[in-house]
């Protein structure tokens, strides 16, 4: 892969569905609430304003009723190919983690490859995001395998 998907935590998966449908499942609030997050948590989509500068806010609810909001602002929308957004994950008071998320939807005909990159960052405006993406050259996934060899 030559794109910036070699940066950050990279998850990719080939879906057995055409790209338009995958894009729809991602961007339609009614669909997004059905699959977002791990099983066992319910997700409510409060906002999904799909345009540059538009905000999204999902709230996941645990079995005990605890709410875990996630929200961000889109910095790039290129239907049906690419989404870039900031993301804040709230785990509790003073426990918010921020990241820049990139989703690339690759057309494989009847199938679609979705490549997601999660880069932890304080950077929230577009310029900063571009800088972060360009400046990072390590593959964190392989780093996870590498850490135990360092820690021993």
């Amino acid at each position, binding site marked *: 892969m030559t794109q910036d998907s070699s940066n950050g935590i990279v998850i990719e998966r080939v879906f057995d569905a055409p790209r338009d449908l*995958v894009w729809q499942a*991602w961007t339609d609030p009614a669909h997004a609430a059905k699959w977002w997050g791990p099983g066992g948590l319910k997700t409510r989509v409060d906002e999904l304003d799909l345009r540059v500068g538009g905000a999204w806010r999902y709230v996941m609810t645990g079995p005990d009723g605890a709410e875990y909001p996630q929200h961000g602002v889109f910095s790039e929308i290129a239907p049906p190919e690419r989404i870039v957004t900031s993301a804040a994950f709230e785990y509790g008071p003073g426990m918010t983690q921020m990241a820049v998320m990139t989703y690339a939807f690759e057309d494989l005909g009847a199938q679609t490859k979705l490549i997601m990159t999660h880069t932890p960052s304080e950077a929230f405006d577009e310029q900063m995001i571009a800088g972060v993406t360009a400046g990072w050259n390590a593959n964190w996934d392989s780093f996870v395998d590498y850490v135990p060899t360092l820690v021993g």
Partner: protein
Amino acid sequence: MATELLDLTFAALADPTRRAILARLASGEASVKELAEPFAMSQPAISKHLRVLERAGLISRGRDAQRRPARLEAQSLAAVADYIESYRAFWEEGFVRLAAYLQELKKETSHDAGQ
């Protein structure tokens, strides 16, 4: 782990020389002079990398004024690995659910088309 520190940590780890320094320190502490030799770098250049690693909490420096040996802070590395693992699991689970949901959508779509 606070995002700010995590940011520093990831930035510190983005450099191959700094990762190599960490790999060297995994086998024991070392002075700037000892680190400079295998890396064919000047001691000031090594010192600069060590400052970045120290600020990110990935290493600490000894008190010995002469040597100030650098040592690996394994806990910080483990915290980074935990962060990566937890988010990787989060997104992968979401993708598994998305795959199942797409199958439902496809069925509905073909059902609608058949009517």
